[in-house]
């Protein structure tokens, strides 16, 4: 059988984000990737932007005045969303990927209860906790910030 006579049929990057009728963990996995990439992009910008402080108060205040724009505030809120989700879900992944919270190996009896179901409460807790943190960050950013 030669390669060129078969169809590749690999899902590709579409398989990361739109796999089909999958469980919530797969979508969490996709969001974790997206937020991670977003945070890395922000980090590179942030390193240069925050380094402006070495030039003293006037430059710093000019930078802050430049960044004091609704567009940047919206971006800042995106960072809060990304960080809150990525951090809380990351903590869940640290536990799971070191073999905690996935349950012990059992004799599989139908209907199977897999590790995915065992850790599901953690995944739900991640959603709730990150929503709370995002709400707190949003309230601070849009309503309280002096």
């Amino acid at each position, binding site marked *: 059988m030669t390669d060129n006579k*078969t*169809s590749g049929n690999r899902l590709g990057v579409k*398989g990361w984000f739109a*796999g089909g009728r999958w469980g919530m963990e*797969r979508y969490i*996995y*996709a969001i974790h990737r997206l937020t991670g990439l977003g945070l890395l992009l922000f980090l590179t910008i942030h390193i240069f932007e925050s380094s402006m402080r070495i030039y003293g108060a006037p430059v710093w205040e000019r930078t802050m005045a430049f960044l004091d724009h609704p567009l940047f505030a919206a971006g800042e809120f995106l960072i809060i969303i990304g960080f809150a989700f990525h951090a809380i879900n990351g903590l869940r992944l640290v536990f799971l990927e*070191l073999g905690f919270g996935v349950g012990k*190996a059992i004799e599989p009896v*139908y209907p199977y209860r897999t590790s995915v179901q065992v850790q599901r409460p953690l995944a739900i807790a991640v959603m709730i906790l990150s929503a709370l943190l995002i709400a707190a960050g949003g309230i601070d950013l849009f309503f309280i910030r002096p």
Partner: protein
Amino acid sequence: MKRQDVQERIISVYIHRFDPTSDKKPRAVLYELAVEQGMTVLDGLHRIKETQDPTLAFRFSCRMGVCGSCAMLINGKPMLACNTQILDVTDKALTVAPLPNFRVVRDLVPDLAPLFKKHVQVNPYIVRTDGHEMESPSGEFIQTPEELIKYLQFTYCIKCGACVAACPTAATDENYLGPMALAQAYRYIVDSRDDGFHSRKSVVGADKAVFNCHYAGECSAVCPKGVDPARAIQFMKRELVRDYLLMRRHTAPLKARALNDKSKEKKTPLPVPPYTVDR
């Protein structure tokens, strides 16, 4: 069940066909199928092949969820065609496609050869250093139920490829070892008779292996045998990290225990069980 209770209904079955001699891409072909209660997807495919289109190709063997030949994408989820009743999935439209993340040989037949090659890479057998004992055994290995349960779940794997079809890493990276091979590596590593952790470490702890799993959890969700590859892979990461931190205790593999003297056993025959019917 009385005859009139048997529901029969006509459903639309979309089958992704691919003919390597003429097609560049798979194409969906519509068939009408009279479905009755209890009819599996595999039964339906047989019915279509017998009555509508003899050129339809699919792979199957045991028809009872043991051989792992007939995994396919059924309404968007990888399942065994023989283990899935059509009316459990749908009562209107059924879409049957070949397993994704594998090359398609023809119609619903995926090329599973890469899966088996990766399986071989992890030395899927008991690895021991006492070759003499393996060639001419002096006894048997006696495991406790606790030792058995640690790997029993992972032995049920039938190598159908459903987990690889569901895995997002495998969706882009054809060199990724995949949930099946990784779960099988763990199945042997955790076996108390095995001494192959260090020989497998270079394969499962390398690039494109266990650390490219990010717990999307989909392999475990679709496994038709409840093998739970995601669990095995996370346990494997723990073993590798413990080994890296020098926290992994090396326990010598189980030693063979001499067989009981059979001649003595024969002298006390088993008691005859009581009759279960009147004579």
